[in-house]
């Protein structure tokens, strides 16, 4: 366990999560309208709010991804990754439980033909990210972190 919370594993987790979150944000940043529709399909937000979320969430993913790789406010970024993945898991699970078959809207939103349907795999994937997020949050060594300076 100690090894998991030390050096290389944490660095790798930061790179993976950062990469995934940056990758996931790009298409959504350039297509907020399509992303808003993807959010709407989940039927969780009251109508109207999906636009606001579609404008903010992709940037949150992007900045969190950049910060966690660059070693800036890693604690805060890890918390955001944990919170976001929890929300994603809940949103996808409730859609699956209600039997709505929808596009994930996780990575690509620009083309409806691109089949990225939600499923158990999506949930497992997000649980994986969630675990990585917790590993980072409870890390013991603060290597390659630049702000705030590790004590």
């Amino acid at each position, binding site marked *: 366990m100690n090894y998991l919370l030390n050096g290389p594993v944490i660095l790798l987790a930061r790179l993976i999560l950062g990469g995934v979150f940056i990758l996931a944000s790009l298409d959504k*940043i350039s297509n*907020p*309208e*399509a992303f*808003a*529709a993807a959010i*709407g*399909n989940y*039927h969780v937000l009251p*109508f*109207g*709010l*999906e*636009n*606001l979320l*579609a*404008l*903010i*969430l*992709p*940037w*949150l993913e*992007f*900045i*969190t991804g950049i*910060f966690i790789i660059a070693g800036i*406010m890693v*604690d*805060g*970024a*890890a*918390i*955001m990754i944990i*919170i976001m993945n929890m929300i994603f898991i809940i949103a996808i699970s409730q859609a699956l439980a209600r039997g709505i*078959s*929808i*596009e994930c809207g996780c990575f690509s939103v620009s*083309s*409806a*033909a691109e089949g990225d349907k939600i499923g158990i795999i999506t949930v497992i994937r997000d649980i994986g990210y969630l675990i990585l997020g917790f590993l980072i*949050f409870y890390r013991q060594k603060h290597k390659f972190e630049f702000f*705030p300076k590790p004590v």
Partner: protein
Amino acid sequence: MNIRIPIVQAILLVVISLLIGLGSNIISSKPIPWFAEELAVVDMVEINSDEPILAAISLKQAKVFFDEEVLFVDARDEGYYQAGHIKGAMKNIFLYELIFKIEEKQNKDTPLVVYCGDPGCGDSEQLAYDFKDMGFTKLYVFKGGWLEWSKAGYPSEVGK
């Protein structure tokens, strides 16, 4: 560990994203409204005008269009379409292919009705806006969608 600092950092991340997200939307060439506005349901007078239109219609109006043999497009995923759709409605396929198929039947200034599952689904509006971007000028979103149509017992079909 002092939990306060990480929480402050997390809040800071949200605030930064909020500022950039809303700010970039303001300067964007294609801004979207902060809060989605529901399309207004229009009456007959507006429907019969020659102006370009993108508006919501009621079940009653949808039935009138159906009886006038206006083309319907089902914006839902294929599985739902196969399980049941408005009679004669087109299936939602790759956008450009769909537009190509529509244009085989009619031009871009002929009325077109788009619908999805229920009043809460956003696919129909999204597709209608895509059509608008592609130059279609007479677009009607039947908000009640498959839910209201099938409840009313209006003509429908399965498969294909």
